[in-house]
């Protein structure tokens, strides 16, 4: 047998040995680590360090929502606080400008909390700053007209990097619902719920999806009631519980029960909301109204 043939046979033998060993070892190797087969690429590559980057991508979604007009780290004091401005309805933002900056964006000229927060630029300090502003975004606008979809990739990446960040799911779901993508919203919220099983925030958002978009009040009721139980479990013993979330859950449940004609149950939820609401007098008025209707024998669904 000549030398090249011998080498080829040796190579074939080694390749067969590798293949055989691989088939033997692969099932064992899979059980060595804690990593599940369904782990995302980012989780495998970055490990727990990925959470550090999640906030960056969440902020990037906010930057996109403001079309690039956003405070830098040097204007941190003026950066928007919390995430509520990201899920405020267009009516909550300025509608004062009938001629928006351009299609796909709406000018925010109101002087409410968010608009004031975002007026971080101030007058230019010198000619360099004044001239430099001609090359940057200096107008506070929000995406609109379907352009809000441009925020979604950043939110998805943020959720991949930090699955325990609840706001990512609620903000993304809010915009998915607004864009008419109900199935995608449900799927994303369910994914969030799998990663955060006791999250009353995600349950609240899921309930809104069922009630407002999928017209399924029974599932909404179940989800919201579970949300209240989760809230009790997580928040009731805290010194500063998240009362706003409880208010939202209970008021929505009361609305649902009122529409279904269950006035007594609606009153029960409103009485719970009374302790959480920032405007208890308005809730008290509603309770009295419902009590009057209940006394008059009106347990029919309201029109």
């Amino acid at each position, binding site marked *: 047998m000549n030398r090249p043939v011998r080498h080829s046979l040796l190579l074939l033998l080694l390749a067969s040995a590798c293949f055989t060993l691989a088939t033997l070892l692969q099932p064992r190797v899979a059980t060595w680590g804690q990593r599940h087969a369904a782990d995302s690429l980012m989780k495998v590559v970055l490990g727990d360090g990925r959470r550090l980057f999640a906030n960056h991508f969440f902020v990037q979604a906010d930057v996109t929502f403001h079309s690039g007009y956003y405070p830098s780290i040097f204007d941190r004091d003026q950066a928007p606080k919390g995430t509520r401005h990201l899920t405020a309805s267009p009516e909550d933002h300025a509608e004062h400008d009938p001629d928006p900056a351009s299609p796909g964006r709406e000018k925010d000229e109101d002087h409410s909390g968010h608009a004031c927060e975002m007026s971080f630029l101030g007058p230019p*300090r010198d000619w*360099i700053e004044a001239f430099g502003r001609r090359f940057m975004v200096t107008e506070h606008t929000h995406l609109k007209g379907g352009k809000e979809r441009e925020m979604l990739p950043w939110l998805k990446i943020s959720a991949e990097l930090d699955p325990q960040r609840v706001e990512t799911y609620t903000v993304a779901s809010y915009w998915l619902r607004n864009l008419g*993508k109900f199935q995608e919203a449900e799927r994303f919220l369910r994914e969030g719920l799998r990663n955060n099983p006791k999250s009353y925030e995600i349950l609240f958002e899921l309930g809104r999806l069922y009630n407002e978009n999928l017209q399924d009040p029974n599932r909404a009721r179940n989800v919201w009631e579970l949300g209240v139980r989760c809230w009790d479990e997580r928040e009731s013993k805290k010194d500063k519980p998240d009362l706003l979330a409880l208010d939202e859950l209970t008021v929505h449940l009361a609305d649902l029960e009122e529409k279904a004609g269950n006035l007594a149950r609606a009153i029960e939820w409103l009485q719970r909301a009374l302790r959480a609401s920032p405007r208890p007098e308005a809730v008290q008025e509603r309770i009295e109204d419902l009590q009057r209707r209940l006394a008059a024998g009106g347990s029919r669904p309201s029109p």
Partner: protein
Amino acid sequence: MNTVWALAGVVIKELYRRKDFYVLFVLTAVMTLLMGSITFFNDPRIASYLKDICLLLIWISALVIAITTTARQIPAERENRTIFPLLAKPVTRGQVVAGKFLGCWLASGIALGVFYLFFGVVSASREHDLAVIQYLQALWLHWVMLAIVVGLALLGSLVFAAPSSNATICFIVVLGILLLGRHLNQVALQQPEPLRTVVYSIYFLIPHLEWYDIRDLLLYDHPGLRWTDCLLATLYAGVYTAMLLLGAWLLFRRKPLHA
């Protein structure tokens, strides 16, 4: 002027003979196309994340091409001892500096043109629309900014011993200006004297490269810049480039050529 063009031509030929540009372009294209193949929430119309990533890669690649190409020009001529026959042509040292600058700047411009063409194709294929004016303004300002970067790297190649140290320092300076330049005055005002004056002086001295980064205007479909602003920014870059080239020429004039 013919001598300067001839020298520039050699640098441009070097760009397409070396592999740097091809590697960077292929990397940019592959990463952009990979990101483009992902569909978020079943919506194929989402485009800004892709444009954002593509533009970021273009900015990084353009800086790498401009700085590394420029940083090795004069040291390579000295190391290979080709500077002696070059200067014996006769070519003056001023012409060498001008030719090297022009070549590097044009080479960066050619690379930038290819990158922006790719970006335009990606952007138009996603959005079925291309804001041509904003797109050309972004390309022009990016190229003008690279003139300052090339000037800086050329000056650095006469100050620092090795191309690697020059390239590293240039990267730090350019990235520092791009990230912090806009905010230095704000930082200065928070400092006590005399630090405040020092930081404010640096703020006025540095070339404000961040002006030329109009990616946000392009990404979020803002209206284009006024042409007078583009012209003024071009003049500003021209003055800084001339200053850097003058400094490079003054240094090169007195520099001994044997290593």
